[in-house]
């Protein structure tokens, strides 16, 4: 076989891995690879800031379930990507980030645009590599894709010196990847499955607490089967929304800091908590020693280090959620002790109690005439999109109102930065999702603060015809921080008023997009309808909402989950 360059080998390897889209930003050391990409069928999208590239690759990955790929140059290109990498890491998103590096001979010399990106990203990648030998380039790339997508997924960074990409090499034949040090446990221990199912048989007040792991493992159907046949009520984390249909009567929506009253009450009063692909994050548990005090806890997770990290688990099930749920469903089906009708009867009273809590304090807000309430905007978007759009969010109030008032019925429909809480995520992620699903309606629900963090990506959207929509809930504040100041800092609004924001309608025009504005409640629906009717252009909807609206319920940080502020 004739020799090819490292850059050509990279392109070949990417194609072998099924990569069709890359989000990136070029620079000196990565020119060889950019040049080689021109001869391939891979679409190579130029973003306007490297953080946008990584978030777009992340949005592409979350929406499609495939590995997202970002391509950055060395030095500032790489460091600009770090927030995006950390975002993906916290939410376990499969992603490969390729960075250029200065030639090997210059590494360590403080060369122009040199930075130790492998050192910098060590704590926020699943794994990372500096390719120091051209012969290792392709094997490392293959390993990177394998690691990113398998087990508990996550971002993997490969740092590639310029001279490695220029080196001549033979393209190695593909081999099955076997790693001595990495063998995720996919199948549950049968004894643990039995224990878990027996606990379900015996429980009087069981709850399913569902996280992003169910979405990552594509096991929403298995989960729905388990919930429906056992009639166990379901609550989801922010990352889990969509894993179980939000309109199913068993769904009590999200739990935790801004979860529903019923969700938090049922967890608090449960005698069996079945955690599936969730990690007992502090936004869920509140004060740890009062979390689900009477519950026996089953925890299904592919990552052993998630088990008993924050909350002591009684029945751990280390496995891929899909395999664990399948095994549990099969166990119950074949058990003489399990009967669907009898179970529905057994849990009837408990479900009535849960519904009663929900009826007592449903998610709600006060209508204030023509003043636009943000919750109403989300409800209207939900209604007019038939609950079927891909929704991305920024971080803060916009994110929580979306989680509360948009009823996600499908997985991979809500793309949001849950763990890291990255403002500026939503717009580039929406572009990534739109590139993956050009025919889907993709809407970034944003605040006037967070949209400005990556607003430059409007140009990317325009350039590649990614006709996303942006709904800005504009209150002239950094709303969530302001809310904390209102509740806990005596309304001292330090650093939160956004006294100057661009005119978003004019800004839309400047970026070749359509700008719409609603200032009164009756303008909300027409604006959304108009936006939804435009399919060939980016649309920005500027909703001028009530300035000091808060997200409720709210569990103050560090308090028990039953100590919810309701209004």
């Amino acid at each position, binding site marked *: 076989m004739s020799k090819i360059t490292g850059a050509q080998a990279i392109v070949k390897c990417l194609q072998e891995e099924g990569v069709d889209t890359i989000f990136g930003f070029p620079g000196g050391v990565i020119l060889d690879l950019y040049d080689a990409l021109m001869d391939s069928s891979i679409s190579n999208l130029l973003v306007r800031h490297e953080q946008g590239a990584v978030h777009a690759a992340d949005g592409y990955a979350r929406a499609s379930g495939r590995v997202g790929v970002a391509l950055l140059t060395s030095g500032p290109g790489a460091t600009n990507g770090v927030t995006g990498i950390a975002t993906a890491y916290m939410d376990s998103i499969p992603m490969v980030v390729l960075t250029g590096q200065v030639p090997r001979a210059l590494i360590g010399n403080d060369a122009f645009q040199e930075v130790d990106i492998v050192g910098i990203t060590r*704590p926020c990648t*699943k794994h990372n590599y500096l390719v120091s030998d051209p012969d290792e380039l392709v094997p490392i790339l293959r390993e990177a894709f394998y690691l990113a997508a398998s087990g508990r997924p996550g971002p993997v960074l490969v740092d590639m010196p310029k001279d490695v990409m220029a080196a001549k090499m033979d393209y190695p034949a593909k081999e099955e990847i076997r*790693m001595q*040090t990495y063998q995720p446990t996919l199948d549950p221990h049968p004894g643990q499955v039995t224990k878990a199912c027996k606990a379900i048989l015996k429980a009087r007040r069981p709850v399913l607490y569902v996280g992003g792991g169910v979405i990552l493992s594509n096991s929403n159907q298995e989960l729905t089967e388990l919930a429906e046949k056992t009639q166990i009520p379901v609550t989801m984390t922010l990352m889990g929304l969509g894993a179980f249909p939000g309109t199913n009567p068993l769904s009590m929506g999200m739990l935790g800091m801004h979860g529903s009253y019923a969700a938090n009450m049922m967890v608090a009063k449960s005698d069996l908590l079945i955690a599936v692909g969730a990690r007992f994050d502090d936004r869920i548990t509140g004060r740890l020693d009062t979390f689900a005090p009477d519950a026996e806890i089953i925890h299904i997770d592919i990552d052993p*280090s998630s088990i*008993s990290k924050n909350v002591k688990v009684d029945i751990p099930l280390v496995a891929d959620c899909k395999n664990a749920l399948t095994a549990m469903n099969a166990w119950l089906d074949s058990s003489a002790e399990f009967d669907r009708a009898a179970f529905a009867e057994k849990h009837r009273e408990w479900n009535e109690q849960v519904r009663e809590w929900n009826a007592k304090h449903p998610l709600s807000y006060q209508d204030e005439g023509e003043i636009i309430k943000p919750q109403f905007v989300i409800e209207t978007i939900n209604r007019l999109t038939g609950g079927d759009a891909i929704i991305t969010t920024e971080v803060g109030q916009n994110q929580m109102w979306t989680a509360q008032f948009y009823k996600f019925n499908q997985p991979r429909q809500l793309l949001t930065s849950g763990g890291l809480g990255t403002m500026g995520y939503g717009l580039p992620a929406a572009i990534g999702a739109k590139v993956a699903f050009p025919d889907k309606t993709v809407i970034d629900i944003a605040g006037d603060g967070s949209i400005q963090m990556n607003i430059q990506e409007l140009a990317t959207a325009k350039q590649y015809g990614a006709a996303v929509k942006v709904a800005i809930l504009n209150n002239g504040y950094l709303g969530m921080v302001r809310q904390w100041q209102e509740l806990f800092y005596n309304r001292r609004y330090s650093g939160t008023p956004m006294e100057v924001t661009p005119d978003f309608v004019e800004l839309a025009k400047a970026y070749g997009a359509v700008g719409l504005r609603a200032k009164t409640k009756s303008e909300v629906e027409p604006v959304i309808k108009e936006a939804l009717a435009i399919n060939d252009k980016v649309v920005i909807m500027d909703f001028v909402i009530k300035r000091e609206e808060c997200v409720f319920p709210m569990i103050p940080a560090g308090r028990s989950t039953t100590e919810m502020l309701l209004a």
Partner: protein
Amino acid sequence: MKHTLSVLLRNKPGALSRVTGLFSGRGFNIESLCVAETLDPQVSCLTLVTRGSDAIIEQIMKQLHKLIDVIKVSDISEGEYVEREMVLIRMKAEAGTRAEVLRVIDIFRGKVVDVSPTSYTVEITGSESKVRAVIDILRPIGIKEIVRTGTIAMARVPKK
């Protein structure tokens, strides 16, 4: 409680920093750390002494295991094991104290490995507590400088 962990890791650039970064990043503490190649030059053995409740040690072991470069993690202080540390001590060795230094070294089965007109450099090997005891006894006589290796340890009966 004190735990001595033995970690086998791939002998790759940056592997050690993944381990130490994990400890600092997650707020675990390292009391001592000792690392060198094993019989297989591609594998390093790292002996790490840490403290924590059972839950914390369990978390440390799981997090270590999660690192791609880590091959095997064992808490060898769970069973019987031998541990050794070596210390090099430069002692003031003047007319009045030379004999006493030698006597103490002899009691602890140490040896003098370097001599200058004003100092002895002595080497002592033993458990961490023995090393501490020697230092405590020699300190009033006049220690100029010490260098300790940190603990290395090995399980007495290899686990199946």
